[in-house]
């Protein structure tokens, strides 16, 4: 957008915008002028978004780094890991021959922490935390969240959770090692394994803080979307990003408390001698007194959160993808209303499928049938969304920016991973596939990689909005292609390994007759994982480099996008718009409209006479 058009936008908002008397209260950010209140205890949603993002990046590096260590173990079980001794200390034992081996207990801890960190800290806090904060107030035309203070607390509870979890990595008994799902008895009996003691206690404390953060954030996001939309921003004019983030927040508010209930009962079992989850257990040859508990009860409570949680992770990525695809195809999103209804349907259905994680736990097969049906029904709204994304691309005037590449990659990953979900959703097939590498491949592609792709699409696309500079495109494209090809190289072969029945979470396979011949494939996967990891470091470099040295943003709306965040000044202060709030006259997807002089019409532009006439004829 040229500077004269930019001027037009400013004039339009001044003359036709909504006056909320912001000026009378806005005495300049005099209290924000010092470093602490501006960058640390900030209540500005834009700063809080960056805090979530950078904390998320920190955790992503740690979580992915852990996976490289356990992949080395799986790919090269006989090679010496002595060179990791400086980093891992006593968890590497060196034998007489000088060969260093990874402590098996610590291997489990790494697998567990990898899952916990990526699922909760990176793809929940790092993804929703970042983009709900950045985009909700901007795109609905609000000054900030409903409660900027609670919003700030939401970040700091996440920070606290992070500190506690990080600390647990350095315990002499190691962090928790019973899997990210923390099933009892490993999680309920402090004496069950070395990570089940202090490690598990800190895990519980950390995740409890985490839930507080999610609830404070979620309540705020929902309240903001439903109450603080600017004039003219009806629900049906909201961009799909906002719809997705709204439903995500609702899912979080309704499902995380159930996890907390599960945690409460777990805490009582650990500390107060109750037997909610424990019955007739032997530890080290001693029978415990607990009788009457049911470990399956925990699984119900966990997966009642756990399944909505996977949609809490994927919905924001879907929203970001929809927006980026539409902007860079220069076409309205195909089937906007169908997209919204699909989001709502997915959100609703996600609450009634949880037992598909428990087909093999001994639940009644008739009950399983019920869950099979609902699980397969989820494929319908998912397929609607995929169809609409592809139709949006069709005959589009596509600009292959890094963000767009990742959005397209998201669609590819979501298709591949969604298809394998349909296999798993059949309880009969799941007898063979449960707890194998097939499941690992399924959820890494559909959730892990796809959500990361959505996040990358969002970061490349909104980086200028966050930092006033662009990320480097060349590095972005290298990052994309290596990650795209590499991710398939890692996870595609895992389907075959899984179909052969290779169980997940094992320490080594070469000693099993049935699985030994996968050694070559496992080496290949490990090498691919290392290459993909290196590409992520390129992203991290690009990110921080661009914050200070990236190409400067010179116009407000560099992508020619319609949504309101691109109508604010490049360096918007707290309150987002210096004067009036923009008034909204149209939906967010007027791209390449017939008869319009440009290929996009921003949401705050009034209808032309022709458009008014058309609207009346409808």
């Amino acid at each position: 957008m040229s500077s004269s058009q930019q001027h037009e936008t400013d004039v339009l908002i001044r003359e036709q915008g909504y006056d909320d008397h912001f000026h009378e209260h806005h005495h300049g950010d005099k209290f924000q002028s010092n470093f602490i209140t501006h960058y640390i205890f900030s209540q500005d949603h834009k700063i809080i978004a960056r805090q979530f993002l950078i904390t998320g990046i920190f955790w992503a590096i740690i979580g992915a780094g852990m996976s490289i260590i356990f992949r080395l173990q799986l790919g090269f079980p006989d090679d010496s890991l002595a060179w990791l001794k400086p980093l891992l200390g006593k968890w590497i034992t060196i034998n007489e021959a000088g060969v260093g081996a990874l402590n098996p207990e610590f291997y489990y801890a790494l697998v567990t922490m990898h899952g916990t960190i990526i699922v909760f800290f990176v793809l929940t806090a790092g993804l929703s935390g970042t983009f709900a904060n950045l985009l909700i107030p901007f795109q609905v035309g609000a000054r900030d969240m409903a409660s900027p203070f609670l919003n700030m607390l939401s970040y700091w509870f996440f920070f606290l959770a992070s500190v506690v979890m990080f600390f647990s990595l350095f315990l002499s008994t190691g962090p928790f090692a019973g899997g990210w799902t923390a099933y009892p008895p490993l999680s309920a009996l402090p004496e069950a394994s070395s990570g089940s003691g202090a490690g598990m206690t800190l895990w519980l404390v950390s995740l409890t803080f985490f839930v507080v953060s999610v609830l404070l954030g979620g309540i705020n996001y929902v309240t903001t979307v439903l109450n603080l939309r600017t004039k003219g921003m009806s629900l049906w004019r909201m961009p799909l990003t906002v719809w997705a983030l709204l439903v995500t927040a609702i899912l979080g508010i309704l499902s995380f408390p159930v996890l907390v209930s599960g945690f409460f009962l777990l805490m009582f079992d650990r500390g107060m001698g109750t037997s909610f989850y424990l019955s007739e257990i032997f530890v080290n040859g001693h029978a415990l007194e607990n009788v009457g508990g049911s470990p399956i009860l925990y699984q119900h409570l966990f997966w009642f959160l756990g399944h909505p949680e996977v949609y809490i992770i994927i919905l924001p990525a879907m929203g970001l993808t929809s927006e980026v695809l539409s902007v860079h195809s220069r076409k309205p999103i195909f089937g906007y209303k169908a997209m919204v209804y699909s989001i709502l349907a997915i959100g609703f259905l996600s609450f009634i499928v949880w037992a598909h994680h428990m087909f093999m736990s001994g639940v009644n097969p008739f009950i399983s049938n019920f869950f099979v049906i609902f699980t397969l029904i989820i494929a319908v709204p998912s397929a609607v969304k995929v169809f609409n994304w592809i139709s949006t691309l069709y005959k589009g005037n596509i600009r292959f920016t890094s963000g767009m590449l990742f959005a397209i990659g998201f669609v590819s990953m979501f298709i591949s991973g969604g298809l394998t979900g349909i296999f798993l959703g059949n309880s009969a097939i799941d007898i063979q596939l449960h707890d194998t590498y097939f499941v690992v491949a399924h959820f890494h592609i559909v959730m892990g990689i796809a959500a990361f792709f959505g996040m990358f699409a969002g970061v490349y696309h909104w980086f200028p909005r966050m930092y006033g500079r662009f990320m480097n495109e060349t590095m972005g494209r290298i990052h994309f292609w290596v990650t795209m090809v590499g991710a398939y190289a890692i996870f595609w072969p895992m389907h075959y390994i899984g179909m052969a029945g290779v169980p997940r979470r094992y320490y080594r396979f070469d000693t099993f007759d049935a699985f030994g011949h996968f050694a070559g494939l496992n080496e290949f996967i490990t090498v691919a994982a290392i290459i993909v990891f290196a590409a992520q470091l390129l992203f991290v470099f690009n990110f921080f480099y661009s914050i200070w040295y990236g190409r400067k943003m010179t116009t407000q709306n560099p992508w020619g996008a319609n949504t309101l965040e691109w109508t604010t000044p490049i360096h918007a202060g707290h309150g987002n718009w210096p004067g009036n709030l923009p008034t909204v006259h149209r939906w967010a997807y007027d791209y390449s409209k017939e008869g319009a002089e440009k290929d996009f019409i921003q949401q705050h532009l009034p209808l032309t006479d022709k458009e008014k006439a058309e609207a009346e004829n409808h």
Partner: protein
Amino acid sequence: MNTGTASGIMEQKTRKGIHAPLFALWAAMGSMVMMFGSLTSAYIVRQAAGNWLEFRMPDIFYYSTVVILLSSVTLHGSYWAFRNGKETMYKLLLPLTVLLGIGFIIMQYQGWNILYSIGVALDGNPGGSFFYVISGIHAAHVIGGVFALTVAMLHAFTLKYKPTEKRRRRFQLVLHYWHFVDFLWLYLFLFLLIQ
């Protein structure tokens, strides 16, 4: 902290006609409903598995139920008085509500002691454990409510009586939350009674 800007941002709160803090409170209450809903579902699932201790609920829980229901009535009376300029009644019923709230918690505590003395232990059969945990987590929510009521009471006695819109809304938050924990208990009580 940044009061200048914050108040500018606060100004927006009633844009869509709903008072944002009240809306947020309702969202939070939705999340509490899920929490207690899941606890009572867990109760049913576990009970269906057998090996379940049956016991008679001590009478004191009936009395505590009456007390907390009564406290909702007094609080509502106080709110009504506040809105209709009946200052004395407003200032009388509010502390009474606080007392009833504290009374409820004491009675729950007594109830747990009685349960313990008749051999229903927290670390015994899950039939008993669930009772303690569910009523205990509820009591924690009531304690939060008592704090909120205390703040409202301090407002009543330290600020000059003025039934402004702003103060009415503040009062409304406490009112809704208190009714919520009250009816929540009624649900839990009936649930535990019928089971």
